[in-house]
């Protein structure tokens, strides 16, 4: 119903190369080690295991390529996520929008931690799936971005009846970590992210 035709076209075609490579890696791992229920969930921590490929060198060598990450690139990473209800992407549904993505640089010269803030716009104000969509966006970015990015996903103010509660959940690392160990929920998330390749 909210179909924004202007946004429908450019989104899916433009995923940047780097995040896609990472994503393929994680899919492979998942297929290799799929014995038990929880093995399926280990890709959750892919963003953690990446730096161990080269613990010390990753900092410097990554930095050059990482500087390039801008709002458009973040948009490309998440706009192709499928809506859990509709066979459409979050970009085409205007759930994620480029102007609602902000990258905040490190607050101190001693720190290299940047913050990505994504405000999502649920299609309807009482959409019960807002949390799941937000979780999908957070998982996608945490998997695709280097660990120096903190990912803050929020529901855009005034677009959802319980936006404060949803935001609090999405911001709670412990709840997110536990959710990612929940097989059913991860199944939904995986399906949403399957279109991101």
């Amino acid at each position, binding site marked *: 119903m909210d179909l924004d035709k202007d946004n429908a076209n450019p989104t899916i075609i433009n995923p940047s190369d780097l995040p896609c490579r990472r994503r393929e890696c994680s899919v492979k791992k998942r297929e290799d080690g799929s014995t038990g229920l*929880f093995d399926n969930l*280990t890709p959750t*921590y892919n963003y*953690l*295991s990446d*730096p*161990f490929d080269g613990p010390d060198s990753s*900092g410097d060598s990554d930095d050059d390529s990482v500087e390039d990450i801008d709002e458009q690139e973040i948009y490309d990473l998440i706009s192709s996520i499928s809506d859990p209800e509709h066979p459409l992407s979050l970009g085409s549904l205007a759930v994620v929008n480029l102007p609602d993505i902000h990258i905040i640089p490190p*607050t*101190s010269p*001693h*720190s*290299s*931690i940047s913050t990505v803030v994504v405000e999502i716009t649920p299609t309807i104000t009482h959409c019960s799936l807002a949390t799941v969509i937000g979780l999908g966006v957070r998982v996608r970015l945490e998997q695709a971005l*280097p*660990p*120096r990015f*903190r990912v803050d996903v929020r529901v855009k103010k005034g677009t959802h009846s319980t936006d404060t509660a949803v935001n*609090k959940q999405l*911001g*709670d*690392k*412990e*709840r997110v*970590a*536990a959710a990612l*160990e929940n097989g059913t929920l991860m199944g939904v998330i995986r399906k949403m992210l399957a279109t991101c390749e």
Partner: protein
Amino acid sequence: MTSPLEAPSYTIQPLATLSPPSSSRTWQSAPHPSLPLVATACSDRNVRVYSLTSFTLVHTVTGGHKRSVRTVSWKPGVKGQSVLATGSFDASAGIWRRDERGLEDDFTAQKQRGDDDEEEDDDYQFSCILDGHDSEIKSLSWSPSGQYLATCSRDKSVWIWEELEDDNFETVAVLQEHDQDVKCVAWHPEEDILASASYDETVRLYKEDADDWVQIAQLNGHDETVWWVEFEGSGMSTKDFRAQRENLSQERAQHLELLERSGPRLATCSDDRTIRIWRRKPKENRQYASQNTGIPSIIRSFNIDEDWFQEAILPQRHDRVIYSISWSRKTGLIVSAGSDGKIILYKERWESQVPNGVKADGDANAPEDAEESQRTPLTEWIVVAELFSAHGVFEVNHVCWAKRNDKGRRHEDEEIIVSTGDDGEVKVWTLDELKT
């Protein structure tokens, strides 16, 4: 001598990274009450036990949990064996034991010599499982006497377990005061008082009253999830800056007396990026109430409520959520860490000379609590050390103090800071005092 406010007076120096690290997130570490060991709760469902002498892995506690181990706690006061409680996202808590007889003396020598991990006797033995919570256990903690174990969960409840005998644990209380996830539980060092911190932004205190555990106080003040709660050590006024009693003004001497009547204080940290100190308002008739056993139980129940007020907010140095704080039992220093990767060190001191009304803390107290004791904060907290990127770009989930036990120890009471991060690493830090 009066250094400018918040001038750093320590540096936090890296001493070691415990090896090998976990390949995924580590949540929390607990130093052993008597041995030079630290147990680390890992998201790979294991607990790693490292030596604080050699900084290497000595045991891996595996096979007990189906999901992340979120929290670990050593039972205090056990002779001849180590007892470890583990709490997991799988909603269960595990009790593990290891015979330590004869190992205390040459423990580290043995460990350094070889990997005897295959010997069954040498491992931590799974002893029993505590089932009851409906969802993820977030924190657990033994009471100082070892009599009680408290657990808390996303199911909004706090459980108190008592070990009757031989791994027979009885649930002595299920406390359901919180409206949301309970993030952390901690025990008072002197009295059987339990504190819990929650996603509902409050802290609650509980105590046993005529066989029933009841809430005795609710602490409001934080604007976001309260992630950690910890009591001050016992008798700190003889160890920290308060130990120097000569030439104190009457005002300060009076303040010390009030503080001592309050007993150990409470520290909390939150997603609102603040660390707050709470203090019990001394009861005028405290001694009467507890000594006179002839008072009917109804009246005692009425008296059991305690009045805790916010005494101070520490200087705000964190940019993001603060996950953990720890209050040194030796020096009274507070250390904090969180999502921004920083480790910050705070020290309390007498407020510098003229109380010129600059302190913001005074206003933060609720008006109805405004009495002489909290109206005039005679002490202040300053930042004495700040470390960036303690775990590189990763979040620091936990920080705590431990006794230093490696060869480089500079004095008997020297402490180290142990930090636990999203990078799977547990790091050990020393404090160097800056000479000016």
